[in-house]
C-alpha cells in the first residue's frame, strides 16, 4: 500500500492540452522508467489515485485500462494493480500520433511542392534545431543557477 506523500506527487497540468488520462499514463510510465516503481510493485488503486490527484475515477480507470493494454501494468481482480513483469514502456499512443503528424507533414510538403528528399531534409533540420534549443536552454539554466 502506498502512503499519501507518494501519491500526491502526481501533478496534472491544466494548461497541458493533452487529455488528463494521457498525462496520468505518462507519469506512471516515467515512474517505471526511472525505477521508482519496479516490476511486480503494487500501484495505488484507481480510487486511491483519483482521490489523491483530484481527478475523476472514470479518468484514472481509463488510464489504467490503456496501460494494461500496452503491457505496462496488470490488474488482478480483487487484488489490485501491479507493474507488469516486463513493462513495455514504448508508448504506442505516441507512435500513432507520430504517424498522424508525419502524414500531415507529407500533405503539407505536397502542398508546397517539395520532393521527398527535400521533406526529409526539413525534418533533419527540425531535429537539429530542437537539439540546439535544448542545449541553449540548459546552458541558460546553468547560467541562472550560477
Amino acid at each position, binding site marked *: 500500500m502506498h502512503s499519501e506523500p507518494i501519491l500526491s506527487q502526481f501533478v*496534472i497540468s*491544466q494548461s497541458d*492540452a493533452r*487529455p*488528463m*488520462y494521457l498525462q496520468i499514463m505518462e507519469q506512471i510510465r516515467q515512474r517505471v522508467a526511472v525505477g521508482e516503481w519496479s516490476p511486480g510493485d503494487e500501484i495505488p488503486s484507481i*480510487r*486511491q489515485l*483519483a*482521490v489523491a490527484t*483530484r*481527478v*475523476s*475515477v*472514470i*479518468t484514472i480507470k*481509463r488510464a489504467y485500462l490503456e496501460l494494461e493494454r500496452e503491457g505496462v501494468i496488470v490488474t488482478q481482480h480483487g487484488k489490485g494493480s501491479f507493474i507488469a513483469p516486463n513493462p513495455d514502456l514504448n508508448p504506442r499512443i505516441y507512435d500513432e500520433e507520430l504517424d498522424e503528424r508525419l502524414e*500531415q507533414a507529407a*500533405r503539407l510538403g505536397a*502542398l508546397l511542392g517539395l520532393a521527398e528528399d527535400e521533406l526529409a531534409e526539413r525534418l533533419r533540420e527540425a531535429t537539429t534545431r530542437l537539439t540546439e534549443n535544448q542545449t541553449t536552454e540548459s546552458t541558460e539554466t546553468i547560467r541562472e543557477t550560477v
Partner: protein
Amino acid sequence: MNEISVQFEAVSKRYPHFVLENIHLKLPTGSIMGFIGANGAGKSTTIRILMGLVHQDSGQVHVLGHPMPAGQAAAKRDIGFVSEDMRLYGPATLAWHMKFVQSMVPNWDAPYAEKLLQRFDLKPQQKIKGLSHGQRVKAALLLALARRPRLLVLDEPTTGLDPIARHEVLGELMAVLADEERTILFSSHNTQDVEQISDQITFIDRGQIVDTDGKEVFLDRWRRLRLQLQPGAALPNLPGIIQVGGSERLPVLTINCFDPAMLSACQRWGATVQAVDSMTLEEIFVANVHSRREQVTA
C-alpha cells in the same frame, strides 16, 4: 445494494414561465455527476425535485431506491444537501450548528467533523454572521459531509469561492468517493471543476437535457476539424456536424461523434485535414447549447 443512486424517468414540471421537460437521468452508485447549465436552465428545479422539495407533474423519480416525493422521509436520512439559498442561523456559532445537527442524525462522525474544521480552516467558536461567503459554504458542506450521507447533492458548491477554498472543497468531494458506496451530484456553471472531478456529465438548457454521458466518452466524441477544400468543393458529408465555422475554403467543423475514420473519409472527398483539435468541456458546452438553440428557432 442499489446500483443506481438517482434515476429520473420522463420527469416534467410546468411553471407559468418555465417548463422542465422530459428529464431522464441515471447516476450510478460510487460516481460523481456534474450537472452543467446556464443560469435559469433548470438545474435547481431538477435538484429540488430530486430532494422532494418540489413535486413533479409527471414522471418517476427514484433516489437511493425510494420513490420521490412519496419516500422522501426515508431517502433524506441518507442524503446530504447543500444549496446556495440554505441559511444557517446567523447569531449562533458553527460549534452550535454542529451540536444541533449531531443531535438529529444517527451517523454523525465527530472525528471527521474535527478533521474537516482543520482542512477547511474554520473556527467552531465563530458566529455564522461573521463568516465570509466562502466560509459559510464550507460550514454548510462540513455539516452535510460529517453526516456521512450515501448521497451528496450540492447546488453550486464552488460558486463564489476563491481558488484556495475551491481547491479544498474539490479535494474533499473526491475524498468522499474513496468509498465506492457513496455518490455525488453537483451542479455548477464552472466547467473546469466539472471536467476535473466528474465521472458523468449532464448538460441542461432551457428545461431540457441537452446531452448526458460518461466524461471520457463525452470528451472523446467532440472534435474540431480544420479542413482545406478545393475551390468550389462542397463540405464532406460527415455525420454529427454541429457547427460550421471558418471560411469557404478553410472550413472548421465541430463534430459530436468523432471517429478517426473520418479523416480518411475527408481525404477521399478531396479535402485536406489541417488539424484535429480536442475541445474543453466549456467549448463543448457552448457549441452544444448554441446549436440546440439555433435548431429550436430555425
